[in-house]
């Protein structure tokens, strides 16, 4: 069971990670991948994701470890952007491969729910030339409740 976690400061192409990740696990039954992109709705010009290097990477690695223990996986890959992003740029990629589809799909779902609300990221948006901080959302807590945490 191989876990890879990367924080990237520059734009990335999901395909460049998913292809090699899939090829690295011969014998897999399925691979599930989620890619989140910066939405351009409501005149958002840019999004900035700030992190605390000392805690953000270990935090995501611990989450990946939790997912690996909970689901029957062969490999798990998490790639997360930091810094300033423009609408349409990928912000997060989670890919899980497993013998059976249920584990792969559930692991991606679990990681996304937890990444969104448990990770040490602070976001701000640029609209009309003004940066403003994004507050936590109640929805994220109901997402977590799905997993009984």
């Amino acid at each position, binding site marked *: 069971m191989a876990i890879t976690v990367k924080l990237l400061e520059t734009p990335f192409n999901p395909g460049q990670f998913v292809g090699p990740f899939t090829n690295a696990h011969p014998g897999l039954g399925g691979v599930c991948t989620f890619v989140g992109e910066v939405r351009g709705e409501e005149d958002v010009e840019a999004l900035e994701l*700030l992190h*605390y290097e*000392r*805690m953000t990477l270990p935090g995501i690695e611990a989450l990946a470890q939790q997912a690996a223990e909970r689901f029957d996986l062969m490999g798990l890959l998490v790639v997360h952007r930091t810094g300033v992003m423009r609408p349409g740029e990928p912000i997060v990629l989670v890919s899980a491969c497993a013998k059976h589809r249920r584990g792969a799909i559930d692991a991606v779902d679990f990681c996304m729910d937890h990444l*969104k*609300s448990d990770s*040490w990221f*602070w*976001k701000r948006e640029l609209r009309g030339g003004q940066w403003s901080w994004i*507050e936590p959302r109640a929805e994220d807590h109901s997402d977590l409740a799905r997993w009984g945490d």
Partner: protein
Amino acid sequence: MAVTVVFLGKLADFAGEGERELPAPLDWQGLLGALGPDLAATASGERTKVAVNGAVLADKSALAAGDGDEVALLPPVSGG
């Protein structure tokens, strides 16, 4: 002889800087006193967590940082 205090997210805006050096040793009351009333009020809020060298304190009032330690003030993370 110094403790580095790191301000994350919007706390950095409030503080006007990303980090600040404070004399060691540093306890919770010492930190609040050094931050000034506005930042101290935010730091004291239930939703702000405190980490020392990357580990979140279960009880932030038990802060006891020494020379070379890094104290981080962590506001709630942003939703998706």
